């Protein structure tokens, strides 16, 4: 049996962990940075600027998470034929 679905899901899980870690770190950095502004309007402007990247990271994380879920499902199905 040459199917290596375990390895695939493990590798994708590691990639997902990197993305999640980045998302968390970026959130902290951008929140700290946004907090430094005194003026509310500037805070909002700067916050939106930081949010763009937070949202993008979140989108990547969600997509990879969904792909991982399906790879795991494939893995479980193929396990039945071992």
């Amino acid at each position, binding site marked *: 049996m040459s199917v290596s679905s375990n390895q695939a899901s493990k590798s994708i899980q590691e990639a997902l962990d990197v993305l999640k870690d980045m998302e968390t770190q*970026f959130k902290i950095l951008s929140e700290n940075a946004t907090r430094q502004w005194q*003026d509310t309007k500037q805070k909002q402007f700067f916050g939106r600027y930081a949010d763009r990247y937070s949202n993008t990271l979140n989108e990547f994380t969600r997509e990879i998470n969904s792909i991982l879920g399906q790879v795991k499902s494939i893995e479980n199905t193929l396990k039945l034929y071992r």
Partner: protein
Amino acid sequence: MSDIKINDITVFGELKRGIGMIGQRMPGALSNTGSSLEDLKRDVLVDIKETEQEIEKQKRAAAQAEKEKSQGGGEAIAKGNEDPRANMSQLNAKLGALKNAFSNIEHLLIRFRQVKTKEGDVFSTVSKANLALDELEQIARAYLQMPATATGYSNSGGNGGDGYSPGSEIRMVGDTFHFTRGSQLGQMQIDKLEQQAKQHNIKGNKISIDKVSSLDFSLLEKNGYKVQKIGANDYSAYKMIEK
């Protein structure tokens, strides 16, 4: 520019660090996901081919068993031998699952490639964002007349608790918060000066800006400062601190 109010100029560097991190770590994470899917697809394809071959083998074995059965007129499959028809049924089920998995992986790869195209968009905005943040920081520093590393006023100097060393740009002398105008004087500097006076709870009555130019008069007066002639072409401006 008069609206720019920040507590700490490191705001730009912090966000740059975060955006830079995305540019550095994201490609590796996405590349690993893509290659894992490609490897999985390849492995499933190999398994499909091998299973198809195994089905053909079982078909031949089943045909042979049938032949022997018809020739010998008895049970073709000896006890302990596997039934090729039962094996074929299992292999066909497995082949179906593998083909379904292969199709799903292909769809996942299409989805993944769509995600990958967005990666390029992110990178192009990362460099633009970093350039914009660099420019914003430069503007802020020029406005505040801050060197590259200084982000505040010296709080040391041992001069008895006023909080400002004798050599710094801002000095507390008597009841006055003194500041010597540098090469530029703008609204942001004035705001920062007043903000610093409030933040440090200066026990003074007045803010004084020395060496002002006639070009500064309107800006200073707009901010409630009174211009004072010290000598020929030599002016200062001051403002009483609101208690």
